């Protein structure tokens, strides 16, 4: 059992095989505790998206272990994996991924209905979740009737409804102006302070400032982790005359 909500252990992912194989991730370990928000940064091609896909069970590692709420995703059948993904993990994407034909409340209630919770109770939970993110008054509006910042806050409410407490966010403020972007991060931070765990992929340092620590990926490896102070003495190698 792991006390971490998310635990990646020595995870590697190779796309293709043999000489043509591309090492997207090499031996990465990352554990996220309840209440913790971890930002993942790095240049494009450094493995950020691969890491997020592995953490969310959307992709499987070539080697290593991914545990979500203590469950090894590698040991699950496709069906159980799909169930765990739905039950334990919320996703927030750059383009919101709200269903345009459903109201804000219906979008937020959807995962609960898929969980088998009744319509009435799902709606009540959705309204409560929207209220928590300060959007109770737009519950019955459609996504194209609310602002981009509001849409993304609806997406966060949806990601964390019910028993879910792991939210994986991929550039969640990408299309938003800096003020709306900040309100999204403020919310993500608040949800983590209330006990959720978050992984935030971003290229903006100002947004990463909301995280408890920042993990840098470079060429598929963890280049640094702000939660792990680096001794200054290792910066200079070799002897000089």
């Amino acid at each position, binding site marked *: 059992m792991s006390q971490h909500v998310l635990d990646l252990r020595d995870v590697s992912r190779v796309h293709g095989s043999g000489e043509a194989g591309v090492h997207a991730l090499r031996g990465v370990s990352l554990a996220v505790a309840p209440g913790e928000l971890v930002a993942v940064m790095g240049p494009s091609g450094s493995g950020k998206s691969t890491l997020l896909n592995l953490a969310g069970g959307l992709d499987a590692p070539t080697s290593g272990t991914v545990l979500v709420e203590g469950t090894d995703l590698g040991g699950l059948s496709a069906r159980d994996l799909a169930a765990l993904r739905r039950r334990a993990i919320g996703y927030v994407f750059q383009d919101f991924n709200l269903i345009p034909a459903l109201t804000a409340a219906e979008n937020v209630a959807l995962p609960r209905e898929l969980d088998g919770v009744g319509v009435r109770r799902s709606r009540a939970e959705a309204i409560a979740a929207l209220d928590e993110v300060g959007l109770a008054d737009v519950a019955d509006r459609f996504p194209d009737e609310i602002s981009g910042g509001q849409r993304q806050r609806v997406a966060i409410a949806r990601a964390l409804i019910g028993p879910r407490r792991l939210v994986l966010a991929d550039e969640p403020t990408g299309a938003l102006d800096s003020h709306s972007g900040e309100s999204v991060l403020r919310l993500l931070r608040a949800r983590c302070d209330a006990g959720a765990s978050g992984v935030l992929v971003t290229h903006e340092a100002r947004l990463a400032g*909301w995280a408890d620590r920042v993990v840098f990926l470079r060429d598929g490896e963890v280049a640094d982790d702000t939660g792990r102070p680096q001794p200054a003495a290792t910066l200079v190698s070799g002897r000089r005359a």
Partner: protein
Amino acid sequence: MPIRHGLLALLERGPMYGYQLRTEFEASTGATWPLNIGQVYTTLSRLERDGLVEPDGPADAGTPSPGGSHGANGKLTYRITPAGRAELERWFATPLEHGSRPRDELAIKLAMALTTPGVDVRRVVQSQRSSALRTLRELTRRKAQADPDADAAWLLVNESLIFQAEAETRWLDHCDAQLAGDGRSPRPATTRENPTEVPR
């Protein structure tokens, strides 16, 4: 100098004595740049010498007392002069020159790291970036805990520090990408032009 103009701006609100100026300066800037009382009085006497401020009456009476500006409690209060007001307007109206900033130690350090044998520049870059991100986290925490109305002035200062730290990380990202791109090994700087020279 920012202290000089900061004090002028505070005196534009009304006459104040030294300790008050110090308190108000720190209230406005979130104690980001703590002032000691000596700096305040030194700056005030220079401002007075330049005719930008002048002694005012006692703080509590509100009327200038002829022949002496010490109030009953011994506090010397100052007020802004018309010349001081003009200087303040000029300060607000004139953008700061980038070239007038003090030497950038970090840029110098990286330039040196690149040309000093045995130094892993990318690790220097990375450790600086992590440090900038820790700073960002602290500044962001401060922001998260602040009251947007009561703390509006220092939130603005805090935001400026956030953007500066962000700019530093972006510059470091750029350096890192460039260093990765050309697989550079350290070499002497003697063959290079001087890129740090600021055009006048």
